[in-house]
């Protein structure tokens, strides 16, 4: 134990004995900090841990542990509708990520390289979707696609003279467009951040050494921006896979993504199978984030 002299060091004198000895109060302080921190961790992770644990519980309902089982995972794999939704999610995520990466990267390059009026405002508009509430974006996209559907219906009627029974543009296309809309700004931001400390004399050096614009881009610009592009892409991928609100507003008949499937399954009550699906989704997200961190680390 250390000798206690801190009172005089702190510049005040103790005239009477304190109610609680100094060492004790210090310990108490430390303990309460520890307790609060642990509480925060518990608050964050206990529900998730419970979810994961119960995905291995053989009991169908209730909060009682009855034994370990993998049957929920087995059922998950054999649930055709669920697998179908997962595959749809994957396809939408892949397609929308590719588009978002291309648009986001090129936009970031253009915004960084060219000078024009009120650039700051344009820049702000580009990452606005990051802070626009998802529900607002969802409603606006739903309305917009509704209008487009109406327009298509009117057009088809005008051209063929027959009013179509259904004219709904919602489906794969609208899902992809919407996912690009909310994930592109993230790609834009990560690439822009990478560009901020990009040394353009490297490109000049490449041209000086005989590389034309295209080869300079492929051999110098792209490899140096790669970490930014990849982490932007992984971010876009996770965002797309996880998205519920916006997808819910713009999906058409038969285009249920995984989160939408989970939500609709939940209406029949929480089953351990849902826990299993959620656990799988969690694992997937963790994997992608880890990958993104590893890639960024390796570059530094």
């Amino acid at each position, binding site marked *: 134990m250390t000798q206690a002299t801190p009172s005089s060091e702190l510049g005040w004198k103790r005239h009477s004995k304190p109610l609680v000895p100094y060492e004790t109060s210090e310990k108490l302080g430390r303990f309460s900090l520890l307790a609060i921190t642990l509480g925060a961790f518990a608050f964050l992770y206990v529900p998730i841990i419970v979810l994961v644990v119960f995905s291995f519980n053989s009991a169908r309902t209730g909060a009682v542990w009855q034994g370990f089982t993998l049957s929920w995972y087995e059922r998950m794999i054999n649930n055709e509708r669920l697998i179908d939704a997962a595959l749809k999610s994957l396809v939408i995520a892949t397609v929308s990520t590719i588009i978002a990466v291309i648009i986001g990267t090129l936009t970031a390059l253009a915004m960084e390289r060219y000078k024009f009026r009120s650039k700051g405002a344009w820049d702000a508009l580009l990452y606005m979707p990051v802070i626009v509430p998802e529900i607002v974006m969802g409603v606006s996209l739903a309305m917009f696609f509704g209008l487009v559907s109406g327009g298509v219906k009117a057009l088809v009627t005008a051209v063929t003279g027959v009013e179509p029974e259904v004219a709904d543009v919602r489906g794969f296309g609208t899902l992809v467009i919407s996912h690009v809309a909310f994930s592109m700004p993230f790609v834009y931001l990560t690439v822009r951040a990478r560009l901020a400390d990009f*040394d353009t*004399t*490297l490109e*000049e*050096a*490449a*041209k*000086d*050494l*005989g*590389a*034309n614009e295209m*080869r300079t881009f492929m*051999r*110098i610009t792209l*490899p*140096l921006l790669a970490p930014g592009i990849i982490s932007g892409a992984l971010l876009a991928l996770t965002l797309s896979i996880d998205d519920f609100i916006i997808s819910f507003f713009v999906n058409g008949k038969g285009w249920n993504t995984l989160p939408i499937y989970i939500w609709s399954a939940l209406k029949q009550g929480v089953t351990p199978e849902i826990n299993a699906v959620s656990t799988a989704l969690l694992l997937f997200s963790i994997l992608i984030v880890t990958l993104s961190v590893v890639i960024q680390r390796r570059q530094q």
Partner: protein
Amino acid sequence: MPDTPTADIGVELRDVVKKFGEVAAVDHVSLAVRNKEFFAMLGPSGCGKTTCLRMIAGFERPTSGEVYINGEAQGATPPFERNVNTVFQSYALFPHMTVAQNVAFGLEMRGVAAPEVKRRVGEALELVRLPHLASRYPKQMSGGQQQRVALARALVNRPQVLLLDEPLGALDQKLRKEMQLELKSLQTQVGITFVFVTHDQEEALTMSDRICVMSQGHALQVGTPVEIYERPNCRFVADFIGETNFIDGTVSAVNGDFATLKTAAGMPVTGRIGGGPDARPTVGANATVSVRPEKITLAEKAPESGVNAHEVRVFSVGYVGSDTRVVVKLGDANIDVWEQNSVSTLDPNYFFRPGETAWLTFKPENALVLTS
């Protein structure tokens, strides 16, 4: 350069202007660099040196005027089609490539076959004495080593002209001196024209065959180091290169190659007419005499010849070993005089002391009358 045979010219700027907005960074510059020459562009910060280099390399296009390489007008020829290579001040080594990959880049872009690339990269790294670091990445190397890689990366392409933008600027003093020698001997060895930008006058004087002194976008004078130092053509060049004293006055007599000025205090000062063939001072015009401190002598007694002999008061004396630097008062003006300590003595009476009077003299042929 009317006396230069055009066939021997590697790079030429003809009446080149480069404006950024309203500001002319380069203002009607004409100069010609001979083949295999070590040509320095010297001037204070912001005078347009880098801009000139960038126009030769093709990164900027002149607002008006034209750049010629090998007698061919460059027009809008992009950098990757010009037979010049640049060594950047920041080196601009590709961080994601090894030293060998960096050096090989230019050859690969030109479609040189792989075995040939390998051989030439090896040779280039030998040349800069770095073959053992071929597989390192740039950030694992010191500044001097990076500098040499940048040099190898440019030289491996055997360009006709090598442009170097303050290549030694980022190095410490000692390394800088070493690299100056190395660079100079390398240039002789490879026989490539070097256009070398610097704002260090000593560097320019010791390394170059010829120097172009620039100020505010103008090329003021082009000449050998001796010409630039001994025959500066204007006040700026005289002041920028080395140390000098200016004695202002009005021209009172012009006599062949010499002119005499009267200072405000009425003292006559005579010097050689400088500033080029078309700069003839006229009687009554304002002019200045530039005389370098080492070309003035101080004596205790009045000299026999009365030309440029003035009685002065010693103001301060600074002993720096190789010479003694005396400041004297000529009227109101401070004049620097450097006297070489060619006699080894401990006698304090050998040196002037502040407050003493002395006679200052310099030969008219060692002073220059400048009108601009």
